């Protein structure tokens, strides 16, 4: 039925913009060329090509249902777990096709970590939440090493101070913002190269939001970060590059500065000036 609803609306014409010529300075960490994502018969992402630069924050913006989450999940093959979901086109991580049959998804996901829109800590202790990844990947040989990793990760996620006395209490007992930071700590504990964040602040109050934004800024030095957000203000504050999606199409992508001050496409302009959305 969503299919029905969107059909008449797919008549937009997207003129040649930056979307067509995905380039970053130097090598792209992640590069998509002509990527399509389908849910059953419905196409949620249409011929998207873009590059994500290393050690930068890239934000995806766009109206609800435009396919931001879908595209984000395509980058670490999280869509594999949805039966009806199918991805075509070419998505490369460091030049390697991640949809190649030989690629080990498990290892891919260890390299491309993900933080979800809704905080989803495991119903285990805070320590176990963070320790889980290193354990299953065999990153540590001794308990000491593990302790070390857990502490550094929590520290970097800005959570250690608040929880160091209660590492054995359940992760689910934390507040929403703390949970979200716990999920970030969990993601960075396996030392991924890319971190994908799907609306990490949508459930959060202003103060928690500010803390997470600070963290993202800090992480940028070591990781490549992609963030989906509904809030243009947030995109403007944290990201260096911004991609604007509309109904499954990548309308425009470029420096955040440029996108927000001088968008090429009038859809983009309409969206960021609040004329819709």
């Amino acid at each position: 039925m969503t299919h029905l609803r969107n059909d008449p609306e797919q008549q937009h014409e997207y003129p040649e913009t930056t979307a067509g010529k995905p380039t970053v300075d130097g090598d792209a960490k992640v590069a998509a060329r002509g990527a399509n994502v389908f849910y059953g018969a419905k196409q949620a992402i249409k011929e998207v090509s873009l590059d994500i630069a290393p050690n930068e924050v890239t934000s995806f913006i766009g109206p609800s249902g435009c396919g931001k989450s879908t595209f984000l999940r395509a980058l670490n093959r999280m869509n594999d777990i949805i039966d009806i979901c199918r991805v075509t086109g070419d998505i490369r991580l460091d030049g390697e096709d991640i949809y190649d049959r030989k690629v080990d998804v498990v290892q891919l996901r260890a390299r491309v970590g993900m933080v979800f829109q809704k905080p989803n800590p495991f119903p285990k202790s805070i320590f176990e939440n963070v320790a889980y990844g290193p354990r299953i990947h065999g990153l540590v040989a001794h308990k000491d090493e593990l302790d070390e990793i857990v502490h550094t990760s929590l520290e970097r996620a800005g959570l250690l101070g608040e929880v160091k006395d209660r590492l054995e209490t359940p992760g689910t007992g934390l507040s929403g913002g703390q949970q979200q930071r716990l999920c970030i700590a969990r993601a960075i504990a396996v030392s991924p190269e890319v971190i994908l964040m799907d609306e990490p602040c949508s459930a959060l109050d202003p103060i928690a939001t500010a803390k997470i934004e600070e963290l993202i800024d800090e992480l940028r030095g070591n990781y490549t970060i992609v963030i989906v957000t509904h809030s243009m203000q947030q995109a403007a504050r944290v990201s260096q590059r911004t991609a604007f999606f509309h109904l499954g199409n990548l309308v425009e992508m470029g420096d955040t500065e440029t996108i927000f001050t001088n968008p090429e496409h009038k859809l983009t302009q309409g969206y960021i000036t609040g004329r819709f959305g």
Partner: protein
Amino acid sequence: MTTNAGSVTTPKEKMRATLKHRYAAEKRFQAYGIAAILIALAMLVTLFVTIIGNGFTAFQQYTVHLDVTLYPQDIDPDGTGDPEVLSKANYQSAVNDAMYALFPEATDRQARRAVRELISPGANYVIRDMVMDDPSLVGQRISVRVPLASEYDQVLKGNVDPVVDFTAFKEGSTSVDWSLSPEERLISEKQADYLQQLIRQGEVEASFNRWFFTNGDSRQPELAGIWGAAVGSMFTLMVTLALSFPIGVSAAVYLEEFAPKNRLTDIIEVNINNLAAVPSIVFGLLGLAVFLQFFGMPRSAPLVGGLVLTLMTLPTIIIASRAALKSVPPSIREAALGVGASKLQCIFHHVLPLAMPGMLTGTIIGMAQALGETAPLLMIGMVAFVVDIPGSPLDPATVMPVQIYLWSDSPERAFTERTSAAIMCLLGFLILMNAAAVLLRKRFERRW
């Protein structure tokens, strides 16, 4: 409310007009709900009261106090103390002598027979068991309580002639005033006199019926016990649990988490649901054909019973487990996969622990059903008279519901109350099992 047809009524007025009815309907509806729950609970209570009312007397047994002299020449002439010898020795004469001593006046054959019949024909085995436990008793005069024969026990419990008040009789003051003609009674006038004489001597006493809890089946009601069947039930359920839980959970995990959704899995789903509807005796036929005839396993063995009940309970466990797996939020799976766990790691580390309470619920229901099942066991030889307590899942055994079924069909009057008592034990077993599982489930729920 009474607006004439011509006048215009606003929606507000119309709403008010119907409100009273709507609230009445609301009250009624709620009352139905309460009534439904009360009806269900009332049924449960009635059931329990009926059973307990019929059966609680079986937990008591009238016993006779005897002073038995164990002459070594009768029991163990060579003084070897060899258990073999002790177990085959003749204790009956010692018991008889003790009884005759209580009735010196009974000298003729007829009277002595009546005296002997006062106590259980199994009394000598009670003494044998004592001697086997403690061979030093040989040569001593020991004081024991042996069960009164079941007919007398029933008379004293008032189960035979409800019209007559036995209180006075039991106190030994009056002779019994039968409402039944002599041939209708379980015991004769003479036997009643003997019994009363015993009572007057203070030798008869109601005590806790320990035999009921420690013995296997017996054709003497006063010695028949539930322990053999309980052990059989335990072995059977152990086999069932050990097989049906892992198989059921694995199947559920595969079907829910791995299997593609296609025609084949549809067929499997219909199949599993349909198996839940197959009469249990048909599973018995299957067990007979497959386990006994094809694989040549022994008859009456808890192992085979367990296998058959496994097949019977699998659908329940699979259906419940699938529901439990469905209820685990996908966000947990995404979280695990997101840090690079493999699908199986994700399931074993996160999904299964969370689904465990629901899986346990299914297992509880399935095991409860297995615990109470009789029909399929008819086919594989577990409806049998088994006296010896089974020592392994391969020994012949019966199970509690079968024991109930068999006792209920026994002519001896005393088995009626034992049937109810066995039912109470089975219900106790069931409630214990449920409680244990509910606690286990709580643990899983509470851990995080």
